[in-house]
């Protein structure tokens, strides 16, 4: 059997986690689940290496027609720099969160037989979203991600988690059906659904379709004003699940917004660019202000996700290669930092049994030293301060805004950065306080944070810091196949 080539890997990185999920149903033990996850990580990691090498080598996207059927009849898989950025992010975050879950799940009574298949199915769905080149196929895999993510939210049980999961489910299903309605309109008009072959021109029916698709994806991505489901769902889920929800699952829907508006119907962007950018701006301010008001750690982080997703929409009004690179960098570094932050928050909850901020006064150091370090480092990236990928992203976006003479967007970026610093330093200050006795110093609290939990959080946090220094090769990879409306070249 020969080694699969890059385009076969497009299929394998979807099917390996899928088969592993099925296998995890058949062998529900903890050991089997762990090995299946490791195997999935190794195989998809190898596939990503091969794909990246091919992309850097050829300088253009990789495509694969499933079953040998060419588009528009068949379904195309497609990977460019943006896909690779998201696929690598998925790989790193899923691997680290799986490592965390190895120690977290047994300690928190999470049912392995239920958890593992859902976890792997979610991995499969995410990979599938990022290589899909077909509007309907996207609907299917987004639904798989929802149907895997919602039970993961509810897995620990309890009223709050169940309610949060149900609210999430209702929003996600509503979003999916609105999206599907838009897709049906596109099919009715054009008779094909491949994202890269459609030539959609501005006409009322297609504007309606694009609007429906966008509204549906916004519900899934928790973009303001469809964000109310996110904070309860992301804060009530177990820590590893929160990490992948905030870092990856919502981002899958934002990724689709980027892809559709820049490749599939770039002609419709005029006017819509400002609406989308405006919604992003509202999300950035609204999410940050609410994050500042929360009294529980995980809710601070969850509202921070609402705010940080808004940055990604700025690419539409700014529309330049710099903005594009900035947004992709932001998506990746936010994913790493946010996942690291959620895992670290989980470690604190693991020791304290709660995540009320006021109960955390003075806990820094001791068994939480590494966790604190991870938390601080992630925070630095989230507020866009150096040295971090978040900083590089902010710089690129700012430069794009000033080059376009868009003072308003530049001011927004700076203000949002300050707000992020405000809500994150509020948390850090509480951890540094020493005006009350350390709750962990009480006799009998000799619990410690398992190595896997501490180091998985730290790995992600360090990853988001190191991104700054790997900017050169990464931006080169991420920019391969960037859309024409961003690079300024005319015509396909």
């Amino acid at each position: 059997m020969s080694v699969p080539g890059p385009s076969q890997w497009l299929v394998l990185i979807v099917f390996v986690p899928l088969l592993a999920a099925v296998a995890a149903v058949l062998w529900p033990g903890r050991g089997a689940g762990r090995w299946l996850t490791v195997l999935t990580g190794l195989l998809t990691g190898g596939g990503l290496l091969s794909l990246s090498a091919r992309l850097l080598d050829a300088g253009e996207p990789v495509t694969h027609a499933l079953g040998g059927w060419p588009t528009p009849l068949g379904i195309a898989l497609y990977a460019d720099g943006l896909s690779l950025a998201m696929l690598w992010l998925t790989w790193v975050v899923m691997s680290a969160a799986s490592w965390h879950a190895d120690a977290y799940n047994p300690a928190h009574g999470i049912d392995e037989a239920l958890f593992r298949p859902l976890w792997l199915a979610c991995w499969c769905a995410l990979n599938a979203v990022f290589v899909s080149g077909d509007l309907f196929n996207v609907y299917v895999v987004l639904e798989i991600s929802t149907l895997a993510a919602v039970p993961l939210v509810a897995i620990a049980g309890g009223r709050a988690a169940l309610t949060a999961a149900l609210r999430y489910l209702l929003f996600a299903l509503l979003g999916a059906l609105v999206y599907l309605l838009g897709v049906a309109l596109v099919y009715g008009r054009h008779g094909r659904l491949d994202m890269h072959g459609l030539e959609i021109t501005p006409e009322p029916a297609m504007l309606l379709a694009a609007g429906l698709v966008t509204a549906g994806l916004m519900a899934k991505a928790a973009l303001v004003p469809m964000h109310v489901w996110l904070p309860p769902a992301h804060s009530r889920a177990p820590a590893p699940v929160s990490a992948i929800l905030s870092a990856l699952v919502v981002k899958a829907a934002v990724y689709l917004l980027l892809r559709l508006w820049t490749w599939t119907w770039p002609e419709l962007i005029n006017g819509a660019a400002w609406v989308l950018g405006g919604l992003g701006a509202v999300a950035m301010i609204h999410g940050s202000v609410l994050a500042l008001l929360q009294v529980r750690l995980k809710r601070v982080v969850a509202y921070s996700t609402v705010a940080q997703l808004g940055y990604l929409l700025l690419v539409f009004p700014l529309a330049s290669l710099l903005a594009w690179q900035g947004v992709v960098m932001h998506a990746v570094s936010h994913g790493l930092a946010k996942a690291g932050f959620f895992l670290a928050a989980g470690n604190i909850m693991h020791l304290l049994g709660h995540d009320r901020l006021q109960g955390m006064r003075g806990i820094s150091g001791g068994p939480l030293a590494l966790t604190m370090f991870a938390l601080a480092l992630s925070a630095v990236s989230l507020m866009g301060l150096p040295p971090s990928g978040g900083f590089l992203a902010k710089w690129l976006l700012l430069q794009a805004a000033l080059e376009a003479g868009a003072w308003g967007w530049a001011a927004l970026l700076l203000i949002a950065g300050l707000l992020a610093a405000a809500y994150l330093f509020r948390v850090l200050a509480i951890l540094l306080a020493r005006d009350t006795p350390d709750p962990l110093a009480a006799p009998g609290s000799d619990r410690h944070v398992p190595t896997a939990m501490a180091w998985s959080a730290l790995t992600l946090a360090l990853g988001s810091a190191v991104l700054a220094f790997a900017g050169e090769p990464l931006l080169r990879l991420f920019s391969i196949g960037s859309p024409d409306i961003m690079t300024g070249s005319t015509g396909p």
Partner: protein
Amino acid sequence: MTPPVLYALCAAAIFGIAVYGLLSRPHLVRRLLALNMMGVAVFLLLVAFARRDPEVTDPVPHAMVLTGIVIAVSATAFGLALVRRLYRDTGRTGLSESRDP
């Protein structure tokens, strides 16, 4: 009025009614039913599009509808299971008054 247009209008009406139901009814089972109605509306539209050309029947929308039904069934089943669990654990059938603190 050609049949496809009639179907499309029907689909739009059903979709609208379903969205109204989803937003206005607190009972979770009703909300799941409303979501299913939305699905039905989209499927109706797709099937209508399959006959855009009266001479040929386009098979692709049928395939999409079948896939969509499978997804709708699984989502509904899972939703109902969650609702039942919520009812068993808390005695509630809706999300109201349960805003996360």
